[in-house]
C-alpha cells in the first residue's frame, strides 16, 4: 500500500479555500513538484465544522455525508485539514456501521454509497512519500532549523475512533527527514481554543499565549502547525511579546524545495516570518509557479 497515486481527489475545506489560501497553495505546489495531481471534489461543502455537531448532530452527519457521496469512487480522497478529516472520517464510520443510514442517504443523494472510499490525511501521504525516498535529496535547506511541532487537538479523537491511524510523531519525522530539528516541548497537543477565539477571546488568548511562550522557552525558532484554524488563532491571539513565526506545515515543506515557495504566502501572515527566512537564507520567490491557476 506504499505506492503513491499520481492523481488524488481533494477536499480543501473552508479554511484552506478562504482564510488560509497560502496553506492550500503551498500544499498544491509541494505535491506538484512530485507530480501528484489533486482534483477538488466537485461542488464540495463545509464538513460541518465545530458548530454543526454542537447544535444538530443529524445535520452534521448530512453535511459530511454529501462530500462522501460526491467523491469519485476510484480515487483516494486527500483531506488537508485535521478538523475536516475528523468530521468526514466520523461520518464514514457512522455510515459504514449502519445499513439503514446508508440506504437513507443513498435514496437522498440518488447514488450508491461507496463503503471503501479511502480517506487519507495529508500526513499519511507524506509518510508514503518519505518511505518512497522522495525526500532523500532535500535535507539541505531546512538544516538545523529549530521547529516546534504543533498538532493542537489533531491527535485526539473520540473513543469510537481509537482504532484509526494515529498521527503522533509525523511532523517530527517529516521535519527530520528534511533536515529540520524538532524541539521537545510541552504544548504540542494543547488545544488552540478554536471558536472561543471569537466568542470568548480572553480564554483563547490565555491558551494561545501559553503555547507561544512554551515554544519560545523551548528554544524554537518557529512553530509549524498542522491545522489552518490553529495557525489563525495562534497568530491573532498572540501578544506582541510572545511572537514567533508560525508556518503552515505545507509552507515549510515547500521551503525545503528550491524555488517553490512564494513570497505571496508569507505576505498573508500576521506574524512576519521574513526576518527568520532571511536569516536562514530561505528566501521565497517573487513569483512562484502557478499550480492549477491558483494564486490570483
Amino acid at each position, binding site marked *: 500500500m506504499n505506492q503513491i497515486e499520481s492523481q488524488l481527489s481533494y477536499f480543501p475545506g473552508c479554511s484552506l479555500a478562504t482564510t488560509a489560501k497560502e496553506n492550500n497553495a503551498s500544499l498544491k505546489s509541494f505535491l506538484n513538484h512530485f507530480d501528484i495531481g489533486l482534483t477538488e471534489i466537485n*461542488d464540495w461543502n463545509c464538513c460541518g465544522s465545530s458548530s454543526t455537531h454542537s447544535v444538530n448532530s443529524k445535520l452534521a452527519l448530512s453535511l459530511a455525508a454529501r462530500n462522501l457521496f460526491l467523491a469519485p469512487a476510484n480515487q483516494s480522497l486527500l483531506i488537508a485539514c485535521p478538523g475536516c478529516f475528523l468530521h468526514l472520517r466520523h461520518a464514514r464510520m457512522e455510515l459504514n456501521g449502519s445499513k439503514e443510514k446508508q440506504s437513507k442517504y443513498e435514496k437522498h443523494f440518488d447514488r450508491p454509497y461507496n463503503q471503501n472510499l479511502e480517506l487519507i490525511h495529508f500526513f499519511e501521504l507524506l509518510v508514503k512519500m518519505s518511505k518512497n525516498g522522495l525526500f532523500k535529496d532535500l535535507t539541505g535547506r531546512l538544516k538545523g532549523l529549530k521547529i516546534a511541532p504543533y498538532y493542537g487537538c489533531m491527535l485526539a479523537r473520540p473513543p469510537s475512533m481509537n482504532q484509526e491511524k494515529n498521527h503522533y510523531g509525523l511532523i517530527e519525522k517529516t521535519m527530520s527527514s528534511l533536515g529540520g530539528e524538532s524541539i521537545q516541548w510541552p504544548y504540542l497537543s494543547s488545544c488552540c481554543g478554536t471558536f472561543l477565539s471569537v466568542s470568548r*477571546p480572553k480564554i483563547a488568548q490565555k491558551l494561545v499565549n501559553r503555547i507561544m511562550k512554551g515554544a519560545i522557552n523551548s528554544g524554537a525558532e518557529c512553530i509549524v502547525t498542522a491545522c489552518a484554524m490553529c495557525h489563525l488563532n495562534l497568530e491573532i491571539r498572540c501578544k506582541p511579546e510572545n511572537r514567533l513565526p508560525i508556518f503552515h506545515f505545507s509552507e515549510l515543506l515547500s521551503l525545503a524545495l528550491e524555488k517553490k515557495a512564494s513570497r505571496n504566502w508569507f505576505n498573508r501572515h500576521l506574524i512576519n516570518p521574513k526576518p527568520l527566512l532571511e536569516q536562514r537564507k530561505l528566501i521565497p520567490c517573487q513569483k512562484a509557479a502557478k499550480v492549477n491557476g491558483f494564486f490570483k
Partner: protein
Amino acid sequence: MKSITPNKTARDFVAQVEELSHASLSRCWHCLCCSGGCPFSEDMDYLPNAVIRMIQLGLKEQALNCSTIWLCVGCNTCSMECPNSVDIAAIMDVLRQMALLENAQISEPGVLSFHNAVVDSISRYGRTHKLEIMMRYKLSEKDLFSDIDLGLKMLSKRKLGLLPSKVKDKKSIQSLFEMAGDLS
C-alpha cells in the same frame, strides 16, 4: 451515615444521554483525568466529570444550565485522557442539543450566537463565510468595536475574503437542512 439519593428521574436521564451519545456513563469512576486534561476546565463553572456526576444523579436542570457544555469545544482531549473510554465530547454535544430543545437557560449565549452564525452561513452558501459570520456574530452580541483593529488587519492581509466561497447546488444544501429538521 448520610447518603445522597439520586432523584427519581435519574435513570431516565442517564438512559436518554447514553442512547443519544453512545457513551457509557457507568464506566466513569470520577478519576478527574478528563477535567485535568481539559484546557478549558478553569473557565468552566463545573468540571467535565462533575457534569457526568450531575447526569448520574439526575440533576438535569443543572446539567443543561451549566457553562461547561458551551465552553467545551469538542477537542476530544478528555477522551484521550479517560482511562475508560467515555466519550465525553459526545455527552457534551447531547447536553447542548437537549438544552436547545428544552429551552433551558443558556449560560454562554455568545457561544450559541457564534454556532448559529456558522450554521446560518453554511445554510446560505454551503460553506463558511468568515467575514459574514464575524459581522453577524458581532451584531447579535451588540459588540461591534472589540477586535475591530484585528478585523481590519485581517482584511488588509486578505485573510478575510469579502465574497464567500460557495456551493453551486444550493438546493442540495437546503435539502440537508430540511432533512435534519428545524434548528434552534
